[in-house]
């Protein structure tokens, strides 16, 4: 019956709507497992997974590691700062050396867009993208959409706003692809310097007016200002950004309806989102984190179920 169409999870671009539905259905069952007294099932006990993080992460890394452990897989962790890549080893060599130690799956975060797709052509292991530069972050998009559906039901025809630093955000790209596949209407909003050119060609609306956009949407996914990718000045100052595009309580109160607030983390409190919003009942930020483990369990489980 149920198999993913892909051997790897490189991006939302490669998977179908049926794949997304299957991941959601499976994640629901894993969410129930996570609420049991013993939160562990033996499905992947014969699998070894390497988590390769060439870029910093707390949430995604902990979430993947927990998902792997809840499925009884063996886990090895690796971070670029303490590895031979510093000595000049190529990515393919690094990965092949790890695979020679009988590793079955690779979960990788890498600063170069497309690193996973390249790797998938050169090594013999299943690869899961945990973020490649400014390109995609598929599991985040899946858990976001899953959390949205949990809150508001079927996303078909719903209005979803993605606001903030769209240009540098892999979360935004994966989110747009995923939401479009599920039939949602998507709008992006932010300062013109942080909205990529030609993004309309993906079938999304563009707005520079945060208040109008909030009034339009059912759900707002607030993105982080990526301080580490601001090598040239895209915005005059964080304070100015906060005044023009920050989400705060009084802004939400001025709308005549309730909307759901999401944030993929890590939050810059007081910049793109204020504490009185982040900690309010509108926010499902911590549910997103909880669902992240269930979604990643589903992805790992379904990919492991694909025989060669």
């Amino acid at each position: 019956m149920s198999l993913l169409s892909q051997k790897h999870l490189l991006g939302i671009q490669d998977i179908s709507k049926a794949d997304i539905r299957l991941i959601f259905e499976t994640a629901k069952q894993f969410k129930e497992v996570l609420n049991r007294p013993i939160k562990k099932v033996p499905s992947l006990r014969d699998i070894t997974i390497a988590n390769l993080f060439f870029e910093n992460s707390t949430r995604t890394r902990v979430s993947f590691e927990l998902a792997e452990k809840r499925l009884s897989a063996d886990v090895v962790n690796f971070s670029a700062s303490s590895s031979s890549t510093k000595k000049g080893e190529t990515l393919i060599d690094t990965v092949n050396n790890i695979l020679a130690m009988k590793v079955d799956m690779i979960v990788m975060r890498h600063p170069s867009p497309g690193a996973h797709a390249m790797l998938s052509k050169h090594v013999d292991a299943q690869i899961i993208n945990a973020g490649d530069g400014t390109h995609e972050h598929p599991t985040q998009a899946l858990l976001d959409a899953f959390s949205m559906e949990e809150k508001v039901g079927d996303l078909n025809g719903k209005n979803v706003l993605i606001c903030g630093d769209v240009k540098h955000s892999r979360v935004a790209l994966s989110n747009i692809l995923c939401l479009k596949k599920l039939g949602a209407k998507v709008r992006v909003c932010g300062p013109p310097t942080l909205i990529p050119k030609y993004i309309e060609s993906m079938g999304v609306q563009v707005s520079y007016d945060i208040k109008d956009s909030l009034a339009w949407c059912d759900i707002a996914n607030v993105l982080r200002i990526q301080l580490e990718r601001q090598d040239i000045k895209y915005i005059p100052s964080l304070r100015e950004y906060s005044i023009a595009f920050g989400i705060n309580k009084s802004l939400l109160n001025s709308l005549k309806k309730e909307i759901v607030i999401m944030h993929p983390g890590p939050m810059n409190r007081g910049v793109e989102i204020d504490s009185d919003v982040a900690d309010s009942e509108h926010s499902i930020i911590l549910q997103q984190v909880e669902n992240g483990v269930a979604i990643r369990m589903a992805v790992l489980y379904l990919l492991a179920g694909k025989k060669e």
Partner: protein
Amino acid sequence: MSPRIILDTARFQLVIDRLCHQLIENHGDFKETAIIGVQPRGIYLAERIAKRITTISKNKNIPIGKLDITFYRDDFRTNNSPLKANKTDIEFSLEGKQIILVDDVLYTGRTIRSALDALLDFGRPSDVELLVLIDRRLHRHLPIQAKYAGKTIDSIINEKVLVEWQEQGEEDKVWLIDKTNLEK
């Protein structure tokens, strides 16, 4: 070989009645007993039995749960099409309870092996009994036996037992069919 009926609708009901009476004989008022159906097809039988016991013995509060074993199966990754996961729904503690594990057909015993693993993750029952509608007593892979069996049959590997339920819009019936020609 053409498909043949091994339990028709009338006998189906008799068998369920008999199983219920056996359970009542052994468990009395069901104070320390719970029924757990194995997803997906053990659920129909579990619910039917709980309902029937309620009618026979006026015992209203029999705890009944659903157990999904998908993530505990030992044929994951060797089977071409993994099973779809179902809901697990056990809203009571298993600690110290007598558990009646219910499934429709007992064959290799591997499903029940998985079910025992899954069950024990919810606590430590005082004992676990197995109840099945059909016991295919040949070709067991593991040392697992049912305490209560609706009907015991001898069948060969090429045959398949198909249980049809009212709940699925069919008449209650059990068929023995030849796998080589799967149309009924």
